[in-house]
């Protein structure tokens, strides 16, 4: 058990590693986790491949429909167009040949061309959308997590504080509101009734995307509403989770003993209570951060914000399984990496976890 004054840091020694576990054991643990990581990614990508190829949407028919829906294309030309598109999109070959070609490309980090934006590479489309998604979601996730965890921790510790009780009521009130309702309310309030914030796009029109003050200010300004909507919804769940965790920790013997021993309350809160309550929250944060590569479809749609989510939805409708696979592969890697990192850090963060 950790000594009271230094509950975590003092248990590590160079020889024993984590709580008496030899460092070689930790490396073996890393090896096992890395192997699991590779397996999870492999299975995930294969599942995505199977599901996308089982879609009833034919990208060739979608393209033909898009091209001909308004035009005067003679029916006899359509068959020629079908043949040309199948060749162009690389849809020839047996399923096995297509599967092997897919893995060859994946291993070269090449997702091939997008079929709904042919011949632009999928990687280019994702690369263009990802910074918007990552920027918005990473910031709003971290802010929501930080605020929620901090306030939740305080509310769990100072259970008689009226202000923090009120925070709890607000968090419980916000948490169950469907996201799109909250987003629409923000849109109507700040975009129409009191129109002070932009309601669409990632930055102002006709402003070059260069690292200037105007552009950065415009990006921040355009991110306020979407970020606020995500934070308001997100902070509630982190708040409630942390409050529940802290409420349990404060009843532990070592906390009671520390208080009786006259340890300063702020020290008890930060080192004895919060630190021990944080690991589950950190796991949730890691998974949420990994999940940002999925994009936030509703946020992007409601606020017209550029990002991966809309790209994915449009690709599904267009039957563009190259693009769907590209986005899902990035997402699988994101979530798996998030979980891997937290798994590797967990024994370092929580001394109660033994790696062997």
């Amino acid at each position, binding site marked *: 058990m950790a000594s009271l004054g230094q509950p975590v840091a003092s248990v590590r020694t160079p020889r024993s590693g984590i709580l008496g576990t030899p460092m070689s054991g930790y490396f073996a643990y890393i090896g096992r986790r890395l192997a699991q990581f590779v397996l999870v990614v492999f299975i995930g990508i294969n599942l995505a491949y199977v599901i996308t190829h089982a879609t009833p949407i034919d990208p060739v028919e*979608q393209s033909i429909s898009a*091209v001909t829906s308004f035009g*005067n294309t003679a029916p*006899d030309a359509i068959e020629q167009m079908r043949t040309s598109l199948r060749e162009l999109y690389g849809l020839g070959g047996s399923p096995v040949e297509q599967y092997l070609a897919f893995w060859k490309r994946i291993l070269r980090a090449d997702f091939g061309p997008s079929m709904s934006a042919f011949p632009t590479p999928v990687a280019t489309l994702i690369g263009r959308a990802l910074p918007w998604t990552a920027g918005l979601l990473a910031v709003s996730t971290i802010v929501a997590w930080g605020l929620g965890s901090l306030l939740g921790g305080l509310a769990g510790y100072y259970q008689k504080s009226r202000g923090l009780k009120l925070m709890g009521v607000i968090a419980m009130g916000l948490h169950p509101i469907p996201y799109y309702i909250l987003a629409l309310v923000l849109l109507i309030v700040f975009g129409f009734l009191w129109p002070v914030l932009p309601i669409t796009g990632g930055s102002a029109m006709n402003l070059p995307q260069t690292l200037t003050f105007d552009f950065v200010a415009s990006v921040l300004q355009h991110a306020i509403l979407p970020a606020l909507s995500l934070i308001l919804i997100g902070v509630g769940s982190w708040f409630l989770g942390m409050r529940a965790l802290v409420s349990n920790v404060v009843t532990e013997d070592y906390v009671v003993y520390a208080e009786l021993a006259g340890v300063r309350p702020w020290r008890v809160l930060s080192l004895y209570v919060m630190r021990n309550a944080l690991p589950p929250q950190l796991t949730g944060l890691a998974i949420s951060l990994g999940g940002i590569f999925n994009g936030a479809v509703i946020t992007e749609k409601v606020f017209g914000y550029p990002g991966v989510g809309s790209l994915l939805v449009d690709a599904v*409708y267009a039957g563009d399984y190259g693009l769907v696979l590209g986005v899902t592969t990035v997402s699988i890697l994101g979530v798996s990496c998030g979980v891997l990192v937290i798994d590797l850090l967990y024994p370092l963060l929580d001394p109660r976890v033994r790696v062997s």
Partner: protein
Amino acid sequence: MGGIRALLLVACALMPQLSLSATSSHAQGIPQNISRKELLILENPEGTIKNAGWFNIWAINAGSQSNGLQQVALDTLWYIDPESGLDGVWDNSLAADKPQYNADFTEMTVKLRKGIFWSDGIEFTADDVVSTVTTQTKNPGMRFSAVLASNVASIDAPDPHTVVFKLKKPNSRFHANFTVRWGAVWILPKHVFEKVEDPAKFDFNKPVSLGAYVLNSYDPDGKWYIWQLRDDWQRTTLGRYGKPGPKYLAYIDPGPPDKRVIAQLNHELDVIHDVAPEGMFALAKQSKVTRAWFKGFPYGHPDPTLPAVIFNAQNDLFKNPDVRWALALLIDIKAVSMAAYRGAATISAIGVPPTGAHPATYHQPMEEWLKGFEIDTGKRKIKPYDPMIGKQIAEMLRPSMGEQIPSDPAEIARAFGMGWWKVDPQAAQELLEKAGFTKRGGAWTTPDGKPFTVRVMVEGDLRPVMTRAGTMIVQLWKQAGIDARIDVAQGTLPTRRAAGDFDTFIGWSVETWGGHPDLSYFLDSWHSQFVAEPGKSQPLRNWQRWSNPALDKIIESIRTVGFDDPKSIELGKDYIKLAVKEMPTIPLMAYNVFTAMDQTYWTGFPTSENPYTNPVPNWGNSRYMLVRLKPVN
């Protein structure tokens, strides 16, 4: 603590700047550094363009088309306006005259307009037209490759302003490929494409314009495109009609319908392409400066497109016209109009959209024939046509919409349509019984004793108005004892439609020029030579896979007469009569597009009182609107 103080300092420094700019008009989606008085903002209904920097429209489905590219930057030989046109429906654009065919329609000669220049100063000549054809026929993966390769045997330019197309087979409508309805085969710049190794993989960025505007800037994330009037706009085909009003055009993705309404109420979106009927009603109520096609109800512009219940005629259940007619007689079009458009629909009983030139050419002249038309139910003969249904819809709406509903019968017919089929469950029952169906315990069974199940395929929230119509029709059929079910296909509809994987669906297989009475635009594709075998992909537009020897005869006759020949109108009427008798699809209404125009900054938009062009901003023809727009002082 030092770090926290530093962060607070940065935040304090940034917040006033952010809030200051937030309260300016620039915060609300207005382009920076462009005077609002010189700018027209239009919706691009394609939404966010994921491949924003792609302007090669001749590549298949690679980038945006209606981001202003086809409306204001490109041009082709002819335009046919779906309304009355600036100077008549037909406009010789890059062509100096109408197409000249030889006697057997195997050769088409085109005289080209002189003095037209590309935006980079190169003169437009016949070589550009020749290059448009040869570039695409040599590269099979391009947008118009197939249609050009299947038609053109050779193309020559005997002089810089003449082009001669030699065709592989007689085709009296070949010029239609180079005639804009919504779009067409656009002319490409030879001097640009001849230097390109692979034209199908060339992005054409920055595009060289043949239209009156050039690209000013665009969003790499595909949310907006800004076009600027050319200094030499007189050297474009639009220059004949005067100087376009707006110096700048912004084609933007304003987001979902509710945001479009907000943007227009904030005067940040001058032309909404389309909103839900409820959005249009909200705009009409809340904004004094918003104008739609009709001044009042039903507001929307009726596109020359005809939504219908489309049967799969290769399905045994729907091969018999008596069954199709029975299902038609169970539909209450008033209920469908209310469900789909809340009454703001223009109905049509016949297989031609009730818009543009068609009411005068087809609907009105055929009214007497429709009134006298009879069907034999097997027990009696009935006259199913009710000429008063359009008026009944108007009267039904009058208590709630008041003065917005016109009183003049001609106005009512123009806004709500003329007649439709009476709801006649008894006749429907007799027709089903005639076809061998039986009703047991209130439910219909097919001649082979199975429940009469009809799936009605719709696109769901991708096309809510049509989905609402389909849902109402399902309800009406269910009430009559048919096991009708809604089948939400969402994005799979194009694939399933082509594969014939449906019983019925709500969509359209009829699209016309609108302003011109010729029906070959869609009708030629209904010839039995194009009907696919069951299980194989059906080319557009005969999604119903219906074939009929009498129809083939009509189509073959149309192919032998010229585009403007009055005989084609008579043949068109023959098609309509045949389609009424056979009911291969149940025509419902025009596809009404709720294009909303904000008159805060610009005035002179096309309307039903001044129908000089189609206001729907993704149509190529919408360029004509620009020369009539005037800034509001």
